[in-house]
């Protein structure tokens, strides 16, 4: 197929504003007569709040209003109604806020915070899910039977038989840490009361405008259509600016309504890290059995994680883990369990990957460990067991509606990186302190939300008199390039130039509610909705032109900004047509909607068709480890990803580079450290993310097998890029050092001593 706009590395539509500093992010938006808000956080991770005295604080000059839990109309939201806007009886984690101040300037607000007197009774918290799960553990919520937040299970075949028939069985345990999303822009909310017809209008760094609207309406007990969220530029999110943004938006909205003034909250980095939800830390146990020829017969796995006190994403995150927990391998006998428990640590939520990076680290390390046991090349072992067309997954889904390209991505990455030769070379004994290694990992990933969620999206296209199109989408730009991708798809469908498409700021009073911009679903869902809206618009144009110019509808088409008819003769340019049509009273606005194909899930057995399509990826890492110092130098990484169709190849590469860097951070440096609920590293001097110097050369390989269910065949790329890196690096480090590290991040002490001094845990 030849395209005019898609499948091309067109310029990002929002890039001019961004390179000139003109792009207005939340903190850059100003209103007259604003108040400045600050939150007071609990002193202890878990404590009863006996009394809050704000009298002295209210006397601080410039203070307009101080709110506490009693001022919040409805102080609990979220799936379990547990997330407190402001802590009421108890503070459950270190980021719980107790009060919020609005003052004429930030200094006054800070001063007032110091004057608020809170009486606490510190309580004994639970800071380890392995303790939370014990029968005699005390309860975080006394009205619940135990601390279990979620449990998913999966059963396929006969697990005992599977092990009985195996020649080799190994059992291993793996752990991963809390991870901070580390978007560069800390959270921002600006609440404007009684603006136009809305009770409150909120601007800020919202990943999910519609979900923010729902939460604020719920908290304020206000009609949904009285809450307006407007979003345009946001400085990254990666799953992070979800629940915390709902909480902050609600808090600031209450202040704005109480004072009838615009209120602005800009978090600093420390506050951002302390209060926002993190990637789930996992403890995992795996048992695998295979024949001596390398056919995997059985896998049993169990993953335990924690939700913190607030159950927001844990159930869905651990659901993805159960579905993808045995990787892209055809295995007849599987038994899996994933659990989430309440604790008093920081709460956990969405972060790019969503329950996959953890299990991939475990299961792909395990594959290499099995290969070693079988004295087999890890590439060979994988090839013997991977999915192909019509393979059946652990959840019993036959992969029969798209190209299962695992072998293709694996082979391409292996060839490009020269894996086989290097693996052999590095497996031999290496002289000196510096040792090289190479490792790989592969994955399959279900696209979009999966079981239990409504999965639909809508767009509005509105053709203007000048031939430009306004595009209203409920899914939002988070930095990933959604505006550009949507503009290209619209342009391709309508036969106009990409720069004629105007992606409107997401505005919840106009843009169709399309669910959250998560789960790498933006291109897939929104792209299909655009297809639908564009088809409807083209139909309107055809009807109008055929009528007006006496043409057969079937002959009419649009190309390069003009409308053509019989014998490919140009009738008139799109802008002239639009002008005429609108002057003739024709409606040139259309709606598009997309609902995913049917999926199914049986929660009792973990069987069904949990996703309507999947993507496949393979990453290879080559490392050099200094065994004297423990330093790991990642020399290069190769990343092959099947995206269905690359709507914008440069953008896909950008996603790959960015995902690989996050995967590298996960592999060798990142860890949010907690100590009895306190957070130890609250800024970038202590929470390390990769700098340019940490990054190796990355070789991206874009594989395209157009998916029948994707717009122009496109699927997903955001999350697949991040989930593989840590596992590939762990395998490379093991190849180099002949020592297996089973906990992330792979740090210095672990490599030199085989144990982590910092934590005193020996995972060997």
């Amino acid at each position, binding site marked *: 197929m030849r395209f005019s706009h898609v499948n091309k590395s067109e310029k990002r539509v929002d890039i001019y504003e961004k390179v000139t500093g003109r792009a207005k992010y939340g903190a850059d938006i100003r209103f007259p007569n604003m108040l400045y808000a600050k939150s007071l956080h609990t002193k202890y991770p878990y404590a009863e709040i006996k009394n809050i005295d704000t009298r002295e604080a209210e006397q601080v000059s410039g203070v307009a209003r101080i709110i506490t839990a009693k001022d919040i109309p409805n102080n609990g939201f979220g799936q379990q109604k547990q997330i407190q806007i402001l802590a009421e009886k108890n503070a459950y984690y270190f980021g719980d806020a107790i009060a919020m101040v609005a003052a004429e300037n930030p200094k006054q607000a800070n001063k007032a915070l110091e004057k608020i007197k809170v009486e606490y009774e510190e309580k004994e918290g639970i800071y380890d899910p392995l303790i939370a799960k014990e029968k005699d553990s005390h309860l975080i919520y006394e009205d619940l039977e135990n601390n279990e937040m979620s449990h998913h299970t999966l059963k396929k075949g006969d697990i005992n038989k599977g092990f009985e028939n195996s020649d080799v069985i190994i059992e291993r345990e793996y752990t991963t840490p809390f991870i901070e999303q580390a978007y560069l822009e800390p959270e921002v909310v600006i609440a404007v009361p009684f603006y136009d017809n809305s009770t409150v209008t909120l601007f800020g760094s919202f990943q999910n405008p519609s979900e923010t609207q729902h939460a604020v309406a719920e908290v304020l007990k206000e009609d949904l259509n009285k809450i307006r969220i407007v979003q345009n*530029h946001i400085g990254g999110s990666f799953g992070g600016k979800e629940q915390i943004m709902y909480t902050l938006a609600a808090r600031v909205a209450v202040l704005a309504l109480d004072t009838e003034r615009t209120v602005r909250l800009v978090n600093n980095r420390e506050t951002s890290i302390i209060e926002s939800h993190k990637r789930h830390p996992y403890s995992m146990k795996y048992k695998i059995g295979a024949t001596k020829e390398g056919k995997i017969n059985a896998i049993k796995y169990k993953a335990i994680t924690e939700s913190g006190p607030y159950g927001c994403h844990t159930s869905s995150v651990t659901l993805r883990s159960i579905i993808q927990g045995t990787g892209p391998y055809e295995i007849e006998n599987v038994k899996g369990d994933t659990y989430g428990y309440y604790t008093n640590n920081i709460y956990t939520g969405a972060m790019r990957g969503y329950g996959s990076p953890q299990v991939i680290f475990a299961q792909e390390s395990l594959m290499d460990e099995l290969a070693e046991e079988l004295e087999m090349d890890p590439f060979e072992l994988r090839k013997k067991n991977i999915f192909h067309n019509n393979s059946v997954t652990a959840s019993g889904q036959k992969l029969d509606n798209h190209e299962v390209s695992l072998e293709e991505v694996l082979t391409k990455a292996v060839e490009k990186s020269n894996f086989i030769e290097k693996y052999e070379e590095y497996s031999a004994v290496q002289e000196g302190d510096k040792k090289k290694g190479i490792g790989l990992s592969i994955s399959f990933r279900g696209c979009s939300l999966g079981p239990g969620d409504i999965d639909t999206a809508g767009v509005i296209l509105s053709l203007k008199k000048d031939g430009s199109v306004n595009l209203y989408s409920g899914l939002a730009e988070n930095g990933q390039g959604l505006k550009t991708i949507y503009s290209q798809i619209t342009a391709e469908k309508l036969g106009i130039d990409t720069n004629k498409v105007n992606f409107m700021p997401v505005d919840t009073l106009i843009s169709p509610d399309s669910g959250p911009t998560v789960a790498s679903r933006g291109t897939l869902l929104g792209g299909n909705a655009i297809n639908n809206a564009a088809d409807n618009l083209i139909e309107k144009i055809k009807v109008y032109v055929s009528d007006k110019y006496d043409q057969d509808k079937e002959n009419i088409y649009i190309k390069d900004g003009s409308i053509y008819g019989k014998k490919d003769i140009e009738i008139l340019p799109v802008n002239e047509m639009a002008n005429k049509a609108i002057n003739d009273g024709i409606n040139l606005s259309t709606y598009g909607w997309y609902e995913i194909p049917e999926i199914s899930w049986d929660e009792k057995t973990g069987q069904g068709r949990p996703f309507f399509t999947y993507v496949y990826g393979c990453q290879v890492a080559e490392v050099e480890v200094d065994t004297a110092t423990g330093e790991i130098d990642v020399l290069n990484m190769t990343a092959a990803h099947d995206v269905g169709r690359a709507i914008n190849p440069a953008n896909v590469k*950008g996603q790959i580079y*960015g995902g690989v860097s996050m995967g590298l951070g996960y592999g060798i440096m990142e860890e949010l450290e907690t100590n009895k609920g306190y957070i130890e590293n609250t800024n970038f001097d202590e929470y390390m993310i990769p*700098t*340019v110097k940490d990054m190796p050369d990355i070789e991206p390989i874009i594989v395209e097998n157009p998916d029948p269910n994707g717009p122009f065949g496109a699927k997903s790329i955001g999350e697949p890029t991040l989930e593989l890196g840590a596992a590939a690096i762990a395998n490379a480090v093991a190849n180099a050092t002949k020592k297996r590290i089973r906990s992330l991040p792979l740090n210095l002490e672990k490599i030199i001593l085989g144990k982590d001094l910092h934590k005193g845990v020996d995972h060997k």
Partner: protein
Amino acid sequence: MKKANINLIVNGKEYKITVEPDERLLDTLRDRLHLTGVKEGCSIGECGACTVILDGKAVNSCMVYSFQIDGSEVLTVEGLETNGKLDPLQEAFIDHQAVQCGFCTPGMLMSAKALLKENPYPERTEIKTAIEGNLCRCTGYQQIVEAIESVVKNKD
């Protein structure tokens, strides 16, 4: 300490400003001069989002007190364009898609600009050193480095 009167040349324009004793250059630029292209990501000199060029050198404007730089010259991302024409670095960032969320972009551009002013033909490793203090969570830096390199190559 009390307020101070200072003179600054920012993006070629002269300003006489009265600043607070604890006012950071970042605040002066963002809050007084409304140059919001300068971003704040960490406030402790670790992320580079607030990078500007101060008397020819790239600095983290969150780590500089305004009263200390009386008489200085400051260049921010808003001052990169000349006569409505983008700086070659800005063009290169566009062509190489070196931008995702864009929050690090102004700081990256200013670090790169300072480098090229001092060293018009940097090696790849010198480019990396110049932007080492600029964190980017989105791009993995590859397209940024490529963009800067392309400007160097185009000089020939």
